[in-house]
Structures are given as C-alpha cells and as structure tokens.
C-alpha cells in the first residue's frame, strides 16, 4: 500500500521522505530546534530550486525542437532529422554551438546595458517558475498573490528590451527595442484583465486556489467552460500573451525584413542564446498560466485517486497551448505596427473592460439566485 501511494504520487512523496529524513537526522545530531527549521528550509528550498533549474532548460530545448519540427511539417518540410533519432539530439548540438560561438561586442556599445540585458531578460522568467503548479501539490511556493506575481514578472521584460536596444549602439536595435517596449506595454493590459476573469470566478489570486476551484464535473469544471465570459477571456489572453512575448504574428520588434533582428541585432554567442532561452521559457510560462487558469491545470478525471496523473494533465494542456502558438506561427502573416496597436487598444481593452463588469453582474445574480433558492427551501 505504501509503495502504491508512492508510485501514485512520486514527487511529493519523495519530497516528504527527504524532508522527514533530514529533520530526524538533524534532531539526532542535537541541533537546536530553531536552527533545524532554518537548515531544513534552506536545504529543501535548494533542492526544489535545483530540480526546477534542471527541468527548465531541458523544457526550453525541446520546445525549440518541437517548434522546428511542427513548423517544418506545416510548410511541407521534414525539419531537423540528422542529429539523433528524429533529430532528438539537435537541441544539444545547438547548445554546444552556442557555447563555442565567438561573442562579438561591437565598438561603442554601452557596456553595462549590453552585458546585463540578456541576464535581466532571463531572471524574471526563471522566477516565474517558482509559483507555477506542475501537479497536485507540486509547486515551489503557494503565494496568496501568485497570479499578480506572474504578471509583475512579465512586466519586467520591458526593462531588458530597453537595455538591449539602448546598449547596442545600433539603429535597428534602438528602433526594435522601442517598438518591443511599446508593444509589450500595450498588450500587458488586456493580458492582466483576462487573468482577472478566472480570479473573479475563483475568488482568489493564488494560482493553486484558482486551480482547485475548477474541480467540479470530475475535474472538468474548467473556467473556459463558463460561457460566455470564460471563452472570451481565454481568447483575449491567448492573443495578448502571444503579443506580450513577441511571437508571430506579433513579432514586429524582430521583423527581419525591416529591422534585421530587432533589439538583439548586435548579440551573438551565448548572450543571444540567453535571449533565445528567455523567449522560449516565456512561451512555456505563458502557456502554463493559460492552462492553469482556463483549463484547470493539473485538474482532470481521477486526479484525486492518482495524483501522478496531474502532471500528465498539466503538461498535456500546456503543450497543447504551445502547439496553438506554433500553429499561429505556421499560418498567420505578420501584422503592421498601426494594426497591432489598434488591435490592442481599440479591440482587446474595451472588450475586457466590458467582460469584467459583465462577470461581476453575472456573479452577483448567481449569488442572489442561490440565496433566493435557500429562502424558498427554508
């Protein structure tokens, strides 16, 4: 029975096992109790952080491979298939290439900004992993304000873009950086408003609480099924999030026909690799948030009996959303700047403002209805 419960919930059980062993070990060594709490906290925290920091780059590498494969199939090509079976080792080859490429720093760059920009681009993305829930009870930190924290981390991307654009000493980078910043701030508003709808439905900003609220109908009570507000919010979220991370069809800052490579024109070697890493990890984070708040995250049938299923559900839904973004890339041409800005401010923002008020009124009527039912019964 014990082994069965371990198999059904491997990661949380392993965590608890290590936690209890460490605590009892320290107790037998005669460490004072307040130090035990601190040491256990630090060691367990470091273990969780290390696991996540190993999983994140692997995820990123295979999302790049997935993108190349899927887009190749859409364009009637095969995609990478030389390195390893089906090109499965291609990301590793890419990584070695990034490591051995020369890092060219052009003359006249602003040293501080040019060096720090890729680092600043990666930091908020990695921190976002802290509050994502990968399975039942499988989140590093359960913040009361988890979703707002994720939005705040997303908004920090603008600073990195500015630094790269300013620091590169290049007109293309400068224009690309300004455009990217304007685009990110324009689409951040609809994104935050779209996230607000599940928050209102669940009555909490904690990501875990929002997921738990979707447990109805055998784990299928997802917020996207709350017609009509759920689908509207999801649609707006998907578009705004795609624009927020500068993916096709909203990849104007990197429009190669006008701006060479946008704000990372002057980056090469591992520094470019870090921008690449940040972009794909952002894609994962954005899809993971979407899967968690609209599709129930780890919520699904039989997840209460076999918690390990939750991991499968979560990654299945997340990769489905990533696939939708790749589908965008394979089929939709790039927008013009004026179309992009108009779409954000004149379509998405008014729609979301209306949806928020509509949701509030609906919730109020629902509560009023329940109370009058109670009154009839009593």
């Amino acid at each position, binding site marked *: 029975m014990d082994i069965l419960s371990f198999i059904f919930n491997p990661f949380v059980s392993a965590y608890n096992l290590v936690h209890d062993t460490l605590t009892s070990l320290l107790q037998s060594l005669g460490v004072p109790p307040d130090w035990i709490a601190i040491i256990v906290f630090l060691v367990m925290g470091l273990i969780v952080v290390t696991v996540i920091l190993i999983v994140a780059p692997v995820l990123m590498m295979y999302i790049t491979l997935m993108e190349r494969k899927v887009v190749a199939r859409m364009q009637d090509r095969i995609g990478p298939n030389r390195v390893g079976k089906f090109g499965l080792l291609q990301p590793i080859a890419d990584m070695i290439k990034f490591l051995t490429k020369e890092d060219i720093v*052009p003359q006249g760059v602003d040293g501080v900004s040019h060096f720090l920009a890729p680092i600043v681009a990666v930091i908020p993305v990695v921190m976002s992993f802290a509050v994502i829930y990968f399975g039942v009870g499988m989140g590093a930190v359960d913040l009361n304000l988890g979703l707002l924290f994720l939005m705040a981390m997303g908004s920090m991307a603008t600073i990195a873009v500015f630094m790269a654009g300013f620091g590169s000493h290049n007109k293309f980078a400068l224009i690309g950086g300004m455009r990217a910043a304007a685009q990110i701030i324009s689409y951040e508003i609809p994104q935050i408003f779209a996230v607000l709808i599940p928050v209102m439905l669940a009555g909490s900003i904690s990501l875990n609480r929002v997921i738990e609220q979707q447990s109805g109908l055998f784990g299928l009570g997802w917020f996207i099924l709350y017609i009509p507000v759920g689908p509207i919010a999801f649609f707006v979220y998907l578009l705004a999030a795609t624009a927020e991370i500068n993916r096709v069809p909203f990849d104007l800052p990197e429009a190669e026909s006008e701006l060479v490579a946008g704000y990372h024109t002057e980056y090469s070697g*591992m520094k470019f690799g870090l921008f690449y890493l940040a972009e794909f990890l952002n894609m994962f984070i954005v899809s993971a948030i979407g899967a968690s708040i609209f599709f129930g995250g780890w919520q699904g049938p039989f997840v209460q009996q076999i918690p390990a299923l939750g991991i499968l559900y979560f990654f299945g839904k997340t990769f489905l959303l990533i696939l939708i973004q790749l589908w965008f890339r394979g089929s939709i041409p790039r927008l013009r700047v004026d179309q992009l800005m108009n779409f954000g401010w004149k379509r998405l923002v008014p729609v979301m403002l209306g949806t928020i008020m509509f949701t509030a009124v609906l919730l109020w009527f629902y509560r009023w209805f329940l109370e009058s039912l109670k009154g009839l019964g009593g």
Partner: protein
Amino acid sequence: MLERYALIGLFMFAAITFPLAPLVLAFLFRPKKPNRLKQSTYECGIEIQNQAPEAESIWVQFRVQYYIYAILFVVFDIEVVFVYPWAVALNQMSAFWIIEMGIFIAVLAVALVYAWRKNLLEWV
C-alpha cells in the same frame, strides 16, 4: 507568509546565477579573435561614419506616440491595482459595490474614448 517570500528570494539568487553559468562556460570555450570589421556596428552594408561611444550618428528621433501609449498604459496599470482587491472581495459584496467599481471603470473608459476620439491611438 515571510517563509514563502524567503523561498522567492532563494529563487532570485538562483535566477541570477542561472544565466551567469552559461556565460562563464562560454567564456572558457569560445574563440576570442576580435578585429575591426567584426566589431563594427551592423548597418546592412553601409559604411558607418562615427564609431565613438554615444555618437549621435546612431541617434533616432522617436515619435511622441510612444509616450502617449506609455501614459495610457500607466493609467490602466493603476486601474489593475485597484481592480484586483475588488475582484477578490467580490463574493461578500453587495450590488452597490459593483456599481462603485462600474463608475471607476467608466471614468477610465472615458479616458480611452477621449484618446480614441482625438485620434491619439493612431500610429500614423
């Protein structure tokens, strides 16, 4: 509550070392053969005139439109700050509170309508 944020702080340290590690690795492996041509600014084949740092030759005068969008963004970001606590308190709330937030959102919608009517949202 503070333990959770201590963990977030741990994540921040990890997040800072995470991009530094590959940079250091790459520093050990990569070739270092800079020359003048490699280090020149990318310019689509045109000869670049002034290579001095902070040279005005790379300067672009941006349109004020960028700033207009930034103002709109700031205003709506502030709105977000007030809407989130309201949304969390929604399940213990009377109809009056919804009307109050309706007024708040309506006033800011007026701002959007103003910008729209004055053609400030036009990029061209």
